[in-house]
């Protein structure tokens, strides 16, 4: 019988004490983790990885998948000679096989002050989504690199590999808090992009409430990774429950805006929101970035197994 208590891993292994209490353990129960293990983050192109893995590499290697022949050269491994061809042609040819390597999954979580708002707050939703996607990567024997964008920098956690490191990931994410004060999403993204050495799937989770959000996406797309943007908005940002003469104070910058929240203003807001999302999607499409708008109320299972599958982020 499988132990399905929180904190246990598949196979009944004991849970390390690293499981953070900030992350609801019921979200990552055994059944959910098993489902996550069947997923893999999609890579449209083969990229060169670091160590041996399960993803196709552009390099020739030692897998079982034949790819080509080449002439024998001195020093080649004689086990790679195709003796059947030699018997017919009396020439020595070396069989080449596809190399399988791992890739680095980049998970970027925006932890600016604006992500700390909403019910449920967007940062919690982002942390859960980041944890789930990180686990998908770890289960696929990929290296997972998690970074938190705060202020003008990207705070990067050490890359981990193997599903056994999932609790390390969870602990790292649990410790993330929304940073007070203004942030510069483009600068932080540029900062992270400058550190990317290995290409791979890059998931960027943010509310994109930044005038330079498009530049940030462009910076990440410039890493030639396969970027997916999870645009997270809370329900009160999609349908504001405002009425009357109000002074709206920006939770991040402290700037205020006087509005008369009547139906006309709310209609204008909805139109503006739709236009903004359409502009972002267009911008992403031009840079071959997958744009996935998700409300923070979306259940994690629906996000991973429905929305991200539909968008071909996972398969």
């Amino acid at each position, binding site marked *: 019988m499988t132990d399905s208590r929180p904190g246990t891993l598949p196979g009944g292994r004991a849970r390390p004490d690293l499981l953070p209490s900030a992350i609801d353990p019921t979200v990552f129960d055994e059944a959910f983790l098993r489902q996550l293990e069947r997923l893999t983050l999609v890579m449209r192109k083969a990229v060169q990885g670091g160590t041996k893995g399960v993803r196709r590499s552009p390099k020739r290697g030692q897998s079982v998948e034949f790819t080509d022949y080449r002439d024998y050269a001195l020093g080649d491994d004689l086990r790679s000679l195709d003796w059947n061809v030699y018997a017919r042609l009396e020439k020595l040819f070396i069989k080449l096989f596809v190399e399988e390597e791992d890739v680095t999954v980049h998970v970027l979580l925006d932890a600016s002050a604006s992500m700390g708002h909403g019910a449920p707050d967007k940062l919690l939703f982002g942390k859960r989504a980041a944890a789930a996607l990180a686990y998908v990567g770890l289960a696929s024997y990929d290296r997972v690199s998690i970074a938190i964008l705060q202020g003008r920098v990207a705070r990067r956690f050490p890359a981990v590999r193997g599903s056994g490191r999932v609790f390390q990931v969870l602990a790292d994410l649990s410790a993330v808090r929304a940073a007070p004060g203004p942030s510069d999403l483009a600068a932080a993204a540029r900062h992270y992009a400058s550190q990317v050495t290995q290409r791979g799937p890059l998931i960027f989770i943010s509310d994109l*409430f930044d*005038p330079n959000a498009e530049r940030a996406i462009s910076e990440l797309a410039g890493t030639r990774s396969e970027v997916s943007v999870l645009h997270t908005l809370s329900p009160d*940002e999609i349908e504001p429950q405002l009425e009357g003469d*109000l*002074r*709206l*104070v920006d*939770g991040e910058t402290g700037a205020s805006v006087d509005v008369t929240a009547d139906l006309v*203003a709310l209609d*204008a807001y909805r139109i503006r929101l739709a236009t903004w999302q359409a502009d972002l999607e267009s911008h992403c499409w031009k840079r071959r970035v997958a744009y996935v708008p998700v409300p923070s109320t979306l259940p994690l299972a629906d996000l991973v197994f429905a929305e991200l599958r539909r968008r071909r982020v996972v398969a």
Partner: protein
Amino acid sequence: MAFLAPIALLGLLFVPLIVAFYMLRLRRAERVVSSTYLWQQLVRDVEANAPWQRLRRSLLLLLQLLLVVALALLVARPFTERAATLARDLVIVVDATASMAATDVFPDRLTAAKRAAIEALAGLPADARVSVVAAGNSARVVANEVSDRGRASRAIEGIEVASAGGNLSEALTLAGALGARARGAEVLVVTDDAGERSAAAGGGEVTAGERDRLRVPVRVLTVGRDRDNQAIAALAVRVDPSGLKRSAFVSVSNSAPSRVIRRLQILADGSPVTARDLQLEALTRADVVIDELPPGTRIVEARLGMGGGDDGRGDEGADQLRIDDAAWAIVPPDRLQRVLLVGPGNVYLQNALALLPNVEVYGATPTEYPTTTGKESFDLFVFDGWLPPELPDKPILAIGPPSTSPLGTVKGTFSEPAVAEAPADEPLLRNVDLSRLHVAQAQRIELPDWARPVLTGPANAPLIYAGSRMGLPTAVVAFDLRQSDLPLQVAWPILTANLAGELLGLAPSNLDSVRPGSPVELPLVRDATGVRVTLPDGTTREILPSATGASSVTFVMTTQLGPYRADPILPRSPAGSAPTPSGPAPPTPSGSPFRGQSNSDPSPGTSPATTGDASDPSIRFAVNLFDPNESNIAPGDGSRLAAWGTDQPNTAAANGRARDEWWVPIVLLVLLLLVLEWLVYERDGARRLLEATRAGVTSLMPRRRRRA
């Protein structure tokens, strides 16, 4: 454009005040949100750091500024001037006669006339004075030299149609007198031109000889279009010579230029008796006699309705005047009246009395009179050349009283007295020609206080007088019939009938054919303190005599068409029960009956009469239009009325300037702005309400339809 109150434009100072209010920063509730990134891009009213903020485009501000400007303009009373079309002093005569109730123009002629008159006020100069005369059954000044057009308009609006024939000449004379008070006055007549119609009909209401009575120009506005009307022109009830049957005589006229079918309905005391369709040729009259009146009927009503026609449809719309489609008649009483003739015997008197309808004549000599029984049962005592020592408490006709009595003080005799010309309006002398009367000798009697002279001789000494003596109708002929040629004249039976009619209460005389608005003389019975008149609409009016001991009262509120009933107001008896004017069932009189007859009155239209019930002292009479001039509603062109005025052009009107004030459109603009301002301010609520209504309607729709 100028302003009557330009000082009110100071109200425009509110404009900068409202602008200042809008520039003041609004105190708002703070709400922390994740980001104002999206709001900043769409919110226009971004605040400034100063307490005053930049003025922004706002529909509400625009509406409120427009509202202030409109209100200031409204109070400042802007106006424009133009040439006046009417004189400074204007007398408006509004025809309110019965024909103005015709509905050939919507809703009726009087309303259209009042509308035209009010619209004509717009052509008055600014300082004009207006008098308004309502020309109903009599001319009446409803507004006198008012300078406020609103008051003049209200006075015009208050005019109501009279159920009577018109008298425009009286109204024009009055208007001319009003207009003569000022120079350059003008008379404006708004009518359907009844004057021309009357003249054409031979009424002589407007004649060329009267034209010089007005020294002001007369302008005529005519209303009316069609002449389609049918009317009951006459209704009378006559009694069969046998005295048992009563017949109604109805005359129906058609003023329309085409043949119509109308249904005539006869009602007896409110119950339908018969109805028949009449084919009325164009511009003709049709007479109908109805013989089926049930016995005991008191009031006969004739109604004219839509005809059935061959196809079952009536000629709707062809009768433009409704008030002449009904008429009423009072049925003469059925009861036989008993008359006791006391005298030596006078065959002329006996015959004349015996010819009266519904009269039973008994005779007695002066010697038999004291022993005559059942005196209480007689309704009239005729004393011929003799008077009892004590007069009975009954109506009395005394012929040649020999001596002084309560009927008059005898001061001697006349020999061949000259007979004065009979007064034309004396009801007792109606249809009586006494110009060839010769009297050999007559008693010189001093006219009592209670009597009026009917026929006078030398020095106004009465030869015939009548009146109400202590509430008892009484008449005295001061000469012996045998001393005159009166019984030999044609007038004798008519005079006898008139005398008996007044004394017995049968008289068609003064109550016959009551026209709307005409006064009615109602006799006071003995001990009565007044008369209570019940009008056709059920309301009652109490009429009290103007002087103590008066024998009659005058009732003037006869404007309604229909049957009236007058009951005496009697003082309460000590026992609490009202005394009956007559005693118990009369015993058989002992006088010798000459002849009992129940002949009917030959003249139709005996409208008023006492009721047949002896215990009912009420008097009934009916007021009917019966005016062919009013029933003929063909409108004229007003040229004959205009000829009443002077031909000289009115220069005063040309010099005047009329003002058109702009308050009406400004008030409408203010109301519109108020509504818009409210809608803009409450647009959220209105929209939510609309959406909720839509949602409610959608939820009420059948599910299958919603899917579709």
